[in-house]
């Protein structure tokens, strides 16, 4: 069973001195779907990059299945931990299929060409995100939402045990918001660890089993979504007055001007 364990972890946020009282000590377990919530600039993206070992933490350690991630080879790590970025970098022009096939990179040795199986996985990922007809299109000719889905298709092809997803619903219309969250929930149900940052508290309330609330000025709190997503916790988080109602047994928050 995959687990990602954080011990006294503080991400290194630029231009901010780390506050030891804000350290995180928690374990992301297989089958859980975590939402990281917090105001702009609190360090949600930095935390995800730190979890993916792309950035050294200011303090503390991260262990993947009881092994510190700093001791794992980059390639081994990429086989197990995958991340989808919020900003999609514009590299060299490439087709959608090529982009999705890159997800197979950590699974291949340097001399290997992509096999039929890798190609099949990439096509299945494209199919899963309704992008089959876009396979040969240039990536930079896609709309924002289509690029977002292509990035998720690449992560699907990578098939990691730990999914780190930065703002999965960005750019997506309502239909694809539901489709993408459904995909992530399906991965969690297949005993994967899913950790995502979210700006929409209602998406978290609908889909996440657990949440981590990052406050700018007080220690973070984490735990079951059902017990933490309350007006008392969320109003200071966003420094915004909220009204709450209920829909199908899940809370629904609306900001009050």
């Amino acid at each position, binding site marked *: 069973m995959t687990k990602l364990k954080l011990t006294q972890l503080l991400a290194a946020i630029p231009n901010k001195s780390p506050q030891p009282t804000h350290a995180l000590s928690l374990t992301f377990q297989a089958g859980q779907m975590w939402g990281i919530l917090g105001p702009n600039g609190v360090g949600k993206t930095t935390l995800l990059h730190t979890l993916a070992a792309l950035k050294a933490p200011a303090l503390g350690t991260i262990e993947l299945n009881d092994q510190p991630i700093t001791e794992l080879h*980059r390639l081994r790590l990429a086989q197990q931990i995958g991340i989808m*970025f919020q900003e999609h970098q514009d*590299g060299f*022009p*490439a087709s959608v299929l*090529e982009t999705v096939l*890159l997800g197979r*990179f950590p699974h291949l040795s340097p001399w290997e060409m992509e096999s039929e199986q890798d190609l099949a996985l990439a096509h299945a990922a494209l199919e899963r995100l309704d992008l089959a007809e876009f396979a040969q299109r240039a990536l930079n000719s896609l709309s924002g939402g289509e690029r977002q889905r292509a990035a998720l298709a690449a992560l699907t092809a990578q098939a990691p045990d730990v999914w780190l997803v930065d703002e999965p619903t960005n750019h997506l219309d309502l239909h694809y918001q539901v489709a993408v969250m459904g995909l992530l929930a399906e991965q969690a149900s297949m005993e994967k660890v899913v950790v995502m940052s979210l700006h929409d508290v209602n998406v978290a309330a609908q889909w996440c089993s657990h949440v981590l609330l990052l406050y700018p000025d007080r220690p973070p709190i984490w735990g079951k979504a059902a017990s933490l997503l309350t007006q008392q916790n969320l109003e200071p988080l966003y420094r915004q007055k909220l009204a709450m109602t209920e829909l199908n047994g899940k809370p629904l928050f609306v900001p009050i001007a």
Partner: protein
Amino acid sequence: MCVSMLSVVFAITQGSVNLSPYAVWQALLGQGSGLNQTLVLELRLPRVMAAFATGGLLAVAGALMQILLRNPLADPYVLGISGGASVAALAAILLGISGFLMSGMAFLGAVLSTLLVFGLSARLGNTATMRLLLTGVVIAAGWGALITLMLALAPPHKIPGMLYWLMGDLSYASTPWLAWLVLVPTCLILMPLGRSLNVLARGPLQAAALGVNVKSLERFVFLLASLLTAIAVTTAGSVGFVGLVIPHMLRMVLGNDQRLILPASALAGGCLVTLADTLARTVIAPEQLPVGVITALLGVPTFLYLLQRGRL
């Protein structure tokens, strides 16, 4: 592969004295007339081999630089490597040094320039690619000023030689073996790295997330591309546009898989310079043109055409 073989054969047969392919074949086998043998083995073969290797080195270096800087306009000279070599070579001409020693100085100039750019932008990483590019461009501009100064101060009888060197000239290229010694292993080394380079071309952060050791790969690519350029410049002076145009043309035809693009660049770059050099020494034979003029005359319209078609 076939086209490059043909271009080499074609290049050897053409010249002030036209030879039939059969006569060339005989000369290579050590038969035929003594004059033909000298012509083929001692004059044309080394020159054609040097031209081919130079083109290959430049095209591969260009393809690597474009990936490293993620900038389609990058070429082997963009980071000031040829500038350093040119200043050293012109200084050698001014001091009356020629031949092997001059090549050595050009090489040292290229290495010095590489180390200077690398040292000043040592922190390669996420945002530092832009730093590398800017440092290189500024240093190249500095070398350019020095070149102009030297040309302005040079005694008149030395100026044609200096200009020929600056425009790229293969008539002094008597030692192609060094270039081949670098080109062939480079192509072999780059084969297993092709997929890593594909990932790097998509951005350093994405590459790191997929398990590439970005820092060391970027360093390696920079130093390798610099070495290739230094050898090419040492062999033939600064031959422009090969490193810019060849990788782009191949990307249009073959897609953007570096496992294909890099070896194909070596072959296509080799063909282009071989043919350009053949033109350079036959158009107004027995006079010779600098090969850099021909590649630029071919390269500029090709590049503008590519830009117009919006494929860059």
